[in-house]
């Protein structure tokens, strides 16, 4: 079965590397990351808002970016889309 959940808004705190070049690379990548809006960077923490139908997967991709050390969540919208059908 194909699962197509609706996009949801969530907010994240990304902890960036203490290494200056990795930190800069992460900030560059995150500034243009699709669906991600970043806030004011307060070393080592970057607030961000994500709009995605698959936030967990996006978080895993963000976590894999060079210079991203850790990701935490502070807010999530419960999408108003159709509920998931019952288990097979």
């Amino acid at each position, binding site marked *: 079965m194909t699962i197509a959940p609706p996009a949801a808004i969530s*907010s994240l705190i990304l*902890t960036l590397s203490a290494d200056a070049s990795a930190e800069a690379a992460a900030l560059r990548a995150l500034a243009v990351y699709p669906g991600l809006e970043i806030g004011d960077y307060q070393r080592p*923490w970057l607030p961000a808002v994500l709009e995605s139908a698959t936030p967990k997967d996006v978080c895993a991709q963000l976590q894999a970016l060079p210079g991203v050390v850790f990701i935490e969540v502070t*807010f999530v919208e*419960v999408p108003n*889309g159709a509920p998931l059908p019952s288990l097979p």
Partner: protein
Amino acid sequence: MQRRDFIKSTALASATAVIAQRLAAAQGTTPTVGPTLPPAGEGITWDKAPCRFCGTGCHVQVGVRDGKVVAVQGDQLADVNKGLLCMKGYHVGGILYGEDRLTTPQLRRNGKLEDISWEEAIDVIARRIMRNPDGFGFYGSGQWTVPEGYAAQMLMKAGLGNNHIEPNARLCMASAVTGYLSVYGVDEPAGCYDDLDAADVVINWGNNPAEMHPVLFSRVIDRRSRGEKVTLIDLSTRRTRSTEYADHYLEFKPHTDLAIANGIAHLLIANGTWDREFVEKHCNFKHDPTAKSLHGEAIDFETYSAAVAPYTPEKVEEISGVSAADMRMLGDLFGNRNLRITSLWCMGMNQHSRGTAINRLVHGVHLLSGHFGRPGDAPTSLTGQPSACGTAREVGTLCHLLPGGRLVAKQPHRQECEELWNLPAGRINPKPGYHTVLMWEKFCTPTTAGGDIDTILVQVTNPGQSLPDLKRLFRDKQGLEDKFLIVSDVYPTATTELADLILPAALWVEKNGVFGNSERRTQQWFKMVEPPGQARPDVWMTLAIAHRLFELGHPGMRDRDGIYFMRTLDDDGTEVPTWDWAHFHDINADRALFNDYRRFTFLKHKNVAPYDVLVKSRGMRWPVIEQPDGTFKETPFRFMEFSDPYVKPGAGIQFYHSSTGDDRAQIWFNPYEPAAEEPDETYPFWLCTGRVIEHWHTGTMTMRVPQLRGSMPNAYVEMHPNDALKLGFTQGEIVVVESRRGSIELPVWLNGRGRPPTGSVFVPFFDQNLLINDLTINDTCPISKEPDYKKCAVRLRRRTVTSAA
């Protein structure tokens, strides 16, 4: 502002505020942005609730619009999570809205489930109990709210005089309970989460907090991000996400953690770095020659020292696989009193056929080394369910317990409870009931063959998936015509498949509730949205069953004055018929039940706060003591004079519930012994089962959340690439995993997030369609009666055409 812009600005503000708090904490300044509640707007109202999932007890702010949960925000006013959520908490609001919510009571007639009325459902249950009250079992969980568990406890032990009541918490933390009891004489941790803010060293004993308790784990990672030095040691049988952050990964062979703990104790003594002053002042020594005794026998230091002497670093390396050098590193850490060391554990030590023993030994290492009694120096068991502590342990819904740490087997304890409940003397049954494994074994055994449990009511848990050795302990019920299974749940589950009567339940913020988390924190919330259809709170079901039994004339439903004993009274002492659904919401039944229960908590210095005080808080850690000005003060650290008002002035540390009556804790010797079932030529692999970050336990809630189910749709077998190569398996190939008890087919996952060593495999248990507990063993710790889900022997083979068909 458009709605989505409003939500985005609210979301960004929440992250910014959490960062401001952190920066201020790091700089010792006042934050530029204080902790805030989410702004009302766009028709959204907000209220607090603890998260529905694990035992961490994070608080969330729940946003409701038009009668539906539309957003969840980490509660910045909550000490536990300081505004953060984890991946599951992220989606907690979505668990309410699966399409297949149960909405109507259903009775199985002629093999088919038929809709019936609540009135009929309650009558069916009461009449089943009336025909054989002693053959009735009540099976709940650490997801029962405190009032739900207390009502169930009253019905069974105070009303029916029947101790066959158990929470599924028997399956997850019973060994922690017996560990605390046998060491300190009283259950639950001395320390709290504040230890994570003060520890120099955090040791994970066979647990994976990065995935299972991520918000607590991030508390440590956050300190590192601020430049603090925190050494993380990952003692584990496989690499996990937690390993990625560890300074030291010490891989040990399954079941050998006892040798490691004894090895540390040996090094402390051999190096002369044990804390003689602390031990001589605060500790005794014990051993357990029978391996079955909760309180064992006293020994002296010389005997203890001789017992641990064989556990040299080289010997421990031979047994466990942890190198002698790493053992010496652990010995040096514990031998250094300038460090503060926090040990954390969860199911790896608890779901263990020597669970009580390993719990004792880890406490013992802390006591022997004096790493106890200061913030950051603590041995702490984390729980997996939101109210395993609050409901299972404190309310005492285990088969041998009464509320407030009282025991059914002790006459003075029964008498205390009978007086508080105004029961006739002798009402409470002195014989402990059946523990979980035994209760289900009796239920699945023909009555003519000694199976003397014929009816079980299940609330808020899914034993058809979570019990070990499922065929023997659950599915053998099929075909036993005189057995009757009643299941209250929110979704169809592996348990409802065999149910004779299904009751649709309200979930989380569809009802009032109180939970108690891993650090003794009691947390309250109010109902925020309506449950779907005819779904109702479990506490109402229990109140209604009790009253129907009263109407049918069960004598146990009357107190010593002949009055219905489970009546709900308002503040003026007027009875409110909460058993009648039409009047259930005339009063806050949770408040009445909780305040009634609260009287018991004074019996063993576990004083919880009054309900109305909890309403205004983000939870309070007991003992909560009323101050002269009428306010209430919590106790973060127990047994320590600087925090615990029950410690005698000048004592410094006092174990005031010591089992030896001398205010001392017990340091135990328990030897390493092989597991109940180990790999052999026929079944050459260790099987370990557990959880994944996306799903909570059996997945009944999280598998209804599209994002979580999409991320992790099915179970798998995690194995080492070399083993896969040897067996000719490829990534993703469906293979057969089988034990002496059963087999299932699972896709292979190589080099995934968990990486077992050669000779070991890991399978998660969240998947209802791939029941790994068909394979697990029902061997239990002889003291805690908790099964070992972490170790049994399996073999793997390629799927044949026949097995694929």
